C-alpha cells in the first residue's frame, strides 16, 4: 500500500493518538511493568564482565537509520550507562555508515550522562563493514581476540545471528539477545543465555530505564494491542456468523 485507505486514515491516527495521550498522561503517575526475565539479566552480565575485567560487546545489528536500530541503540545506551559506573569497557561494532555517527553520539552521550566523558574511547565504536559476512567475520574476530565476557545482541539480525552467538558461546561470554527478526530468535535461544522475544524488544527501554514517559507508552501500546485483538475477534465472529457482512468488513479494511 503506497497510500492510506479510508480505514487506515481513521484507525491509525486513532491508535497513534492513544499512545501519545498515554505518554503525556504518564508524566506523573507511577506505572507497573511486568517482569521481563531476559532484561533483568543485563545487570548480571555487566557484573560478570566487571568481575572478570574483560570487555563487553554491544552489537546493534545490521540495520541503518530505522526504528528497530534506534531502539537497539537506546537499549545499548542504557547498558553503557550502567557499565560506565564500573569502568567496564564496551565495544560497539557498527555495520552501516549512516547509523555510525548516530551510534558514536549515543555512546558518547551515555558516558557524559554518567559523568564519565573521559571513559569514552572513540575507537570502541567501530565501523567494520556494510557487507553482511565481512561484518560477521570481523565481529567474530573481536569476540575471540578481545576475550569478551558479556555479549549483548540487540537490533536487526539476519543469518549472522548464529555466527555471533556461537562465537560468543565458544569464548564463554554471557549472552543476552533480542531482535524484531522473529526468524532469528530460535538461533538466539539455542546459543544465548537470555533471549527476549517479540515486542519485549520494544518494551526494553521502558523496562530498563523506568522513565515514566516510556512506561506510559507501554500502557498505550497495550491498549492498542487490546483494540487490535478485539478487532480480530470481532472480524472472526462476523465472518463465522454472517460471511457476507464479514466479507464486506474485510473489504473495508483492505481498501480497494
Amino acid at each position, binding site marked *: 500500500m503506497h*497510500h*492510506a485507505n479510508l480505514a*487506515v*486514515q481513521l484507525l491509525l491516527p486513532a491508535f*497513534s493518538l492513544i*499512545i*501519545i495521550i498515554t*505518554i*503525556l498522561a504518564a508524566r506523573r503517575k507511577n506505572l507497573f511493568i511486568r517482569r521481563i526475565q531476559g532484561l533483568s539479566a543485563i545487570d548480571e552480565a555487566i557484573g560478570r564482565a566487571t568481575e572478570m575485567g574483560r570487555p563487553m560487546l554491544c552489537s546493534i545489528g545490521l540495520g541503518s537509520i530505522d*526504528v*528497530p536500530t*534506534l*531502539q537497539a*541503540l*537506546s537499549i545499548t*545506551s*542504557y547498558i553503557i550507562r550502567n557499565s560506565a559506573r564500573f569502568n567496564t569497557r564496551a565495544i560497539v561494532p557498527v555495520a552501516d*555508515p*549512516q547509523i*555510525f*555517527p548516530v551510534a558514536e*553520539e*549515543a555512546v558518547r*552521550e*551515555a558516558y557524559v550522562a554518567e559523568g564519565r566523558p573521559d571513559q569514552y574511547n*572513540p*575507537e570502541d*565504536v*567501530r*565501523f567494520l563493514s556494510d*557487507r*553482511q*559476512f*565481512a561484518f560477521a*567475520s570481523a565481529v567474530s574476530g573481536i569476540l575471540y581476540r578481545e576475550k569478551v565476557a558479556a555479549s549483548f545482541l540487540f537490533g536487526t539480525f539476519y543469518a549472522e545471528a548464529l*555466527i555471533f*552467538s*556461537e562465537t560468543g*558461546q565458544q569464548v564463554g561470554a554471557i549472552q543476552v539477545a533480542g531482535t*524484531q527478526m*522473529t526468524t532469528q530468535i530460535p*538461533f538466539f*535461544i*539455542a*546459543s544465548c543465555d537470555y533471549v527476549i*522475544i*517479540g*515486542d519485549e*524488544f*520494544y*518494551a526494553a*527501554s521502558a523496562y530498563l*530505564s523506568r522513565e515514566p*514517559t*516510556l512506561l506510559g*507508552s507501554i500502557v498505550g*501500546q497495550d491498549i*492498542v*494491542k487490546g483494540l*487490535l485483538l478485539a478487532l480480530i475477534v470481532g472480524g472472526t465472529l462476523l465472518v463465522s456468523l454472517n460471511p457476507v457482512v464479514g466479507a464486506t468488513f474485510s473489504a473495508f479494511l483492505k481498501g480497494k
Partner: protein
Amino acid sequence: MASLFVPAKGGAWDIRVVGVFALCVLLFALLQLTPKQYRKYVIQFVTLIAGLYYALEFFWPISHVTGPTKGEAEGNFLTPSMEQISDWLTIIAAFTVGLGVINLSMVHSKRLTKGGNTAFNSLVFFLATLAMVVVGVLKKSHPNSLTSNLYQILFDGALTTLDATMFSIIAFYIVSASYRAFRVRSTEATILLITAVVVMLGQIAVGQALTRGIHSSTLQVLHFEVVRDWILTLANAAAVRAIGFGLGIGGLAVALRIWLGLERGSYFDGQG
C-alpha cells in the same frame, strides 16, 4: 523560483557553486548564534518536519496527479516530489561512507605504527581496500580486459567466495548449537526439540521414507512431510503473526516518540 534553478556552464557554474557554499557558511554561522538552550528545539523542529512530510504524503487523500518524471500517477500533492527527495537523501547519506572509512583508517593506521603481527594484518587491510577501490572504479571508467580480469579475481575469486564461506560456516554452528541446546530440560526445550526433529524429518528423503508405510487414507496426515507442512503453514503462521502485531505496535510507538521528541532517558532526548 523555477527560473533560478537552471543548469549553468563554465564561469557561471563556478560562481554559483561558490555562492552556494558562501550561503551555507553564512547560514551555519547564523545557526551557531542560537543560544545553547534552544538548539534542542531546532533539532526537534527539523526532525518533526522531516517526519511530517512522509506522514502527510501517506495519509493525505489521493487523487490523480501528474509528476515531472513519473507521468500519470496516483498520489497527492506531495507525491510528485517523493522521487527527488529520496534522491537527495540518498546522496546526503552516501557521504557518510567517509565517516566509516575514517574510523577504519584510524584504527588500522594506529595498529600499523605499533608494529608486530597486528601491523601485518592492518597492512593487508589497507592493500586490499586500495586494490578493490582502484579496480572497482577503473572497471567502470576504463572498461577493458585488464580491469575486468582483475575485477574477476578480486570480486568473484576472493570477495564472493569469502562471503559464501562465512555464510556456510553457519552450517557447522547450527550442528553444535542443536547438539548442545536441544535437551529435554524443561517443557519449553522439549517442545523446541520435538518440532525441530519432526520438521527436519519431513524435509529429507530418508525421513519421508520412514512414514511411507502408512497407507490408510485417514492416517496419511501423519506422514512427516504432511505434518511439517501443517506446522509451517498453520501453527507457525499464527504465532509469527501474533508476534508481528506486538512488534508492529511497538515500532509505531518508538517512531512516534522519536518523531515528536517524547523519547526520554537516552540520546534521542536530544539535549543539543
